């Protein structure tokens, strides 16, 4: 399972012209990393080069930006350079879904369609679910974790558990990492020890497991700190 598979599957589920994934790099720089086909690749490049578009807005807003009609007045006013150029590429509607969870902001998934209109309820849910999957796959990729399909489904749900996010915050403070890298460390640790992310997160939150700042040394079991949980 890879990010590419998720993008292709998303494209199919939404009957899209194509789907592109742009990642957010450190310093706020955006980088198109994958597109399912030449048209979506062109559209991704357009947003990148012009510095405007629904994907750009979605990244800033932190929420989905759904455009039903690229040829319409509002879209042309909002993206005067991108909208007509995108229409020329054959895109009539675009759904930009951030690949993010709280402070974990990895990028944006852009679904390009040849027909006007908003996504149906099911299509929007699907797009959000695929964005979740891309997030897990991208984070795992960082940590050298090979995500299986079954695990992907389970983890997509587990990622939504409060203690997983708390644990990511704790590890970020322990290792002086950003939340994204902290989450990747947690995933990698769980994978190495063949444990569930949720269980590892519980251990972290209950102060049974600390990540020591000793380079790549990994987790160290230590006594709980002086004050309780």
């Amino acid at each position, binding site marked *: 399972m890879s990010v590419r598979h998720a993008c292709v599957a998303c494209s199919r589920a939404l009957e899209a012209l194509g789907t592109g994934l742009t990642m957010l790099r450190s310093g706020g720089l955006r980088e198109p990393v994958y597109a399912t086909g030449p048209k979506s690749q062109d559209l991704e490049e357009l947003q990148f080069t012009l510095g405007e578009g629904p994907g750009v807005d979605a990244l800033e807003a932190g929420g989905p930006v759904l455009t039903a009609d690229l040829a319409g007045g509002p879209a042309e006013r909002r993206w005067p350079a991108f909208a007509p150029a995108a229409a020329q590429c054959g895109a009539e509607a675009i759904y930009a879904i951030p690949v993010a969870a709280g402070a974990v902001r990895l990028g944006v998934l852009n679904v390009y369609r040849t027909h006007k209109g908003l996504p149906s309820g099911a299509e*929007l849910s699907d797009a959000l679910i695929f964005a979740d999957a891309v997030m897990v796959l991208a984070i795992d990729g960082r940590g050298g974790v090979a995500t299986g399909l079954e695990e992907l489904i389970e983890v997509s749900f587990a990622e939504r558990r409060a203690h997983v*996010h708390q*644990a*990511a*915050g704790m590890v*970020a403070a322990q290792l002086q990492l950003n*939340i994204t890298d902290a989450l990747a460390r947690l995933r990698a640790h769980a994978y190495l020890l063949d444990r569930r992310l949720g269980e590892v997160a519980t251990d972290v*939150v209950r102060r049974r497991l600390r990540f020591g700042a000793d380079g790549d040394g990994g987790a160290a079991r230590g006594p709980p700190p002086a004050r309780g949980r």
Partner: protein
Amino acid sequence: MGDIAASDRYVREVFVELTDTLVDEFDIIDFLDRLAARCVELLGVSACGLLLVDHHGTLNLIAASSERARLLELFELQSSEGPCLDAYRTGLPISCAELTEAGERWPRFAPTAYTAGFTRVDALPMRLRDEVIGALNLFSVAAEPVHPDVLELGQTLANAATIGILHQRAVQRRDVVTVQLQGALNGRILIEQAKGFLAERQNISVEEAFALLRDHARAHDGKLLDVARAVVDGTLTIGASGARRRSP
């Protein structure tokens, strides 16, 4: 609940306070946090939580009257079983006056809730027309039955929560509802991350960390989410003593 006049006045004050928050700088999580606290006071219950459905169809906690771990676990359990799930699926209020007898109904949730010290649970659907977006969950330790007026008031508060999240009474586009719910839940994730970060930094519990975040936001007239983001970014440090430093 005291004499009628006093409680009516109190209810009115609460609604004025709540509607005061529905302005431009609307902080949805702070609004729901206040509402959860008000539910406990007004309804005479021990604990309250608000759960919203996400795009996976899973119920997630968005705000609670207390951030104690045991209570939060009770909310988390209900993504797969329990009164909130039933209320969400049916769109109807669900009540159980005796949790010790609900073992068959909710084999995991009931014993966990009872062990946590609760005897009664109510779940009120958060709905807008046909759309049920989540549930308002009430826990009680008291053994006596709840007056129907109390549940009616509870439903009114649940409706207030729904309107606060969806911003308007009019029927919404489906996609707008989904996006708003997703935004609210995403905000909660940020708060959980900040709780963990701050708990580690200050060597306190995640529950104490939440109180620090919330108190700081209120004291400085800021949004809880902005404070959470700044803490996680490292641009804001909140000490247990309340002192704060901003690093460049």
